[in-house]
């Protein structure tokens, strides 16, 4: 193991588990409730529109399938980045993290495109119940993605300052990864419930 000059020795914890990682899992549990409530609101409001457009008029499965695929692959890139830093390769960490972030950006671009398309069809957050629930649910997911992208790129930037992103500190990358994958699994659920099963 390389002892880095800036290394802060971890305080041993009662469970041996890292504080930040445990906090991230607790946060994800909490976020399950957050998206659970949003999805519940979407599901109970489904089919109660009093005016169109309705989901079936708008939803574009081929397009969203591609976005879904992009997000899934970003998860792959994320684990590759983590593997990179865990095996001590800063270069692979950077490449894969940038790839993850870029895939995230592609997904976001897709979402923006989708939102504008829907808006052209007359859908808006205030137009009907579908608009309200759809934009809120997918919008919050998109916000999560955006925060993730910022986080990932910040890590890449930080990695240029020696000692900030290292093999010993791969845990920071792992924690970011947990967040990123969670955003991905939320999308798995949304894709099925909101798109495939509209």
């Amino acid at each position, binding site marked *: 193991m390389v002892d880095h000059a800036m*290394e802060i*020795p971890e305080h041993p914890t009662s469970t041996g588990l890292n504080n930040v990682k*445990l*906090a991230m899992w607790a946060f994800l549990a909490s976020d399950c*409730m*957050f998206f659970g409530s949003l999805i519940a609101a979407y599901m*109970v409001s489904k089919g*109660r529109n009093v005016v169109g457009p309705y989901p079936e008029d708008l939803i574009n499965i081929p397009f969203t399938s591609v976005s879904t695929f992009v997000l899934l692959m970003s998860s792959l890139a994320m684990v590759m980045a983590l593997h990179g830093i865990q095996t001590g390769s800063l270069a692979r960490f950077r490449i894969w993290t940038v790839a993850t972030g870029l895939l995230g950006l592609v997904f976001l671009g897709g979402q923006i495109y989708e939102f504008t398309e829907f808006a052209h069809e007359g859908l808006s957050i205030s137009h009907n*119940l579908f608009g*309200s629930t759809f934009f809120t649910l997918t919008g919050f997911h998109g916000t999560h993605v955006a925060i993730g992208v910022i986080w990932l790129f910040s890590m890449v930037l930080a990695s240029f300052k020696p000692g900030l992103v290292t093999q010993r500190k791969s845990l920071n990358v792992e924690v970011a990864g947990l967040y990123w994958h969670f955003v991905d699994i939320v999308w798995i659920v949304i894709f099925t419930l909101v798109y495939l099963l509209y």
Partner: protein
Amino acid sequence: MASRVSVGPVPVTSEQTFAQPRGVWSWITTVDHKRIGILYLLTALFFFAVGGLEAMLIRVQLARPNSEFMSADTYNQMFTMHGTTMIFLAIMPLSGAFFNFLVPLMIGARDVAFPRLNAFSYWALLFGAIMINVGWLFGEAPDAGWFAYANLTSSAYSPGNNVDFWVLGIQILGLSSLAAAFNFLITIVNMRAPGMGMMRMPIFVWMTLITAILIILAFPALTVGVTMLMLDRFYGSNFFVPEAGGSPLLWQHLFWVFGHPEVYILILPAFGIISEVLPVFSRKPLFGYSAVVFAGAGIAVLGFSVWAHHMFTVGMGPVPNSIFAISTMLIALPTGVKIFNWIGTVWGGHVSLKTPMLFALGLIALFIVGGISGVMHASPPVDSQHQDSYFVVAHFHYVLFGGSIMGLFSGIYYWFPKISGRMYNELMGQIHFWLMFLGMNLTFFPMHWLGVQGMPRRIYTYDDSQGWNDWNMFVTIGMFVLVVSFVFFAANMLMSLVVGERAPDDPWDGATLEWAISSPPPVYNFRTIPLVTSRIPLWSEKYPEVYGGDDHGAHSYEQPDVDDEHGREHMVPGAHGDSHEHEAHDAHGHDDTIHLPNPSYWPLVTAGGIAIAFGGFLVSYIMVGVGVAMTVIGIFAWALEPAITYVAPTTSDDAAHDHHA
């Protein structure tokens, strides 16, 4: 040890490092859990007084029929703010004060897991409180009730800014609570002193842990509901708009999915407090420790399955009503287990009726009444007569005032010496208790009769012909007894702070770790981290002949490295004499520096940014932008500044005690 790399500033002498920092700035930038605890305490007491003042005005208005003291508009703001203030700004922060001050001390830690996040929680609480209350300045305080039922809260029916203040304030308070909950969850799971297995933790710590879990899982539902309400109000979305197919009942569900766990968030800390107080003043360990722990966990789990008992009259139909009725009634079982174990603790003890004990016993006596009326509501047919009547008001004041407030005041008296370093005046404490106990029953018991006589809640006036005059007058008079009792409280606290006797380290012959250190505790809490070998570490030390065999929880799974025989020699010494010299050494044997978190103002900047951003929704998007920018800057600066200073090798006499060396 391989990993020990000396870094950071040049070692400083302990006097310099450990001197209490002074001045306002040191409070603003503090990340010390004890100071944050004190900030929570003062804020909570302030808002308790505000909520109490609102209650007084409510009662004055209701003392007589057709009273003209207040208009309907003012009254609606008054009861809404009374409920909101008491729940979010008095009880929760008061519990938070104890979490902050005590959890690290009780588990033998130097601070919480994320000290700066802790400071953030406090500032967010303060800003949220201001946001909710700022409406008073414009005569537009929130006025839709503490559960703000849609669609009365829609812009169509509440066009003013009243509800906006509520929505934005609740969002900020939610962030504050969530941040605190993550912090305490991690602190408790991960920062325990060696030897303190989960089943050795003080019950107060257990209840804090369960409360944290409840917050983590309950608050997101509120956040989502309130976000939707915000979108409905600011951007015309349709979540709760029936004309557009939206459902006002969706709000009720989301609110109570949060709201019922919330009531356990309000009571469990108080339960935890009295589980510490009862044994100490009965001189007997808690009866049925594991039963009390599991009952707490059971309440938490069941607590998520009962929310719709607040909605028995909305027309859910007989099947859902039956299911929620049964699950609600079942909660009586774990709660009963707690009550009975407390009685078992007192039973056969040498009871000393000091003020903290009186309040603890008061909690048991009064909570039983509130619990029973709760179970009465759990029967949907009966609830159809109770719902939204003063019977419910009686129920929740018995559990909230008779339960939470009693417990929290027990805690205030119990830990006052530890927090302030002074003793309170026992006689005045006793007077406070008896007046409060009496006043509480005079005020809230007759509300049962008013409810049975059909008096709905949230009415600003009633008519002579409705037959509620006498009891209402009676209740109002009872409330003034309560007010007098709090005068004794306030006078006692203020006087004791100035002229109170100096408190010894361990005035009550306590059993838990916080009594092993000085009163008030030093900045670093424990010079060396204690090794815990018992649920009642101090008693095991002070009375080895009585509690010698007490090694409960020793074989808890995650502490394989603690061996009891060795450990006993290192047990925390009693509080007699100067504790620092005797403090046991860290089990790991190499903890020769004290790590204290650096002061930081970034938490304040971040919380301020969030508050400004939310406030911006009422002013301009520019302000929202400024707030967001401030938040982002705050977060990055926070992430990049060094968190911990490593300083001050401990004095050599500690090394002499190092048996592991």
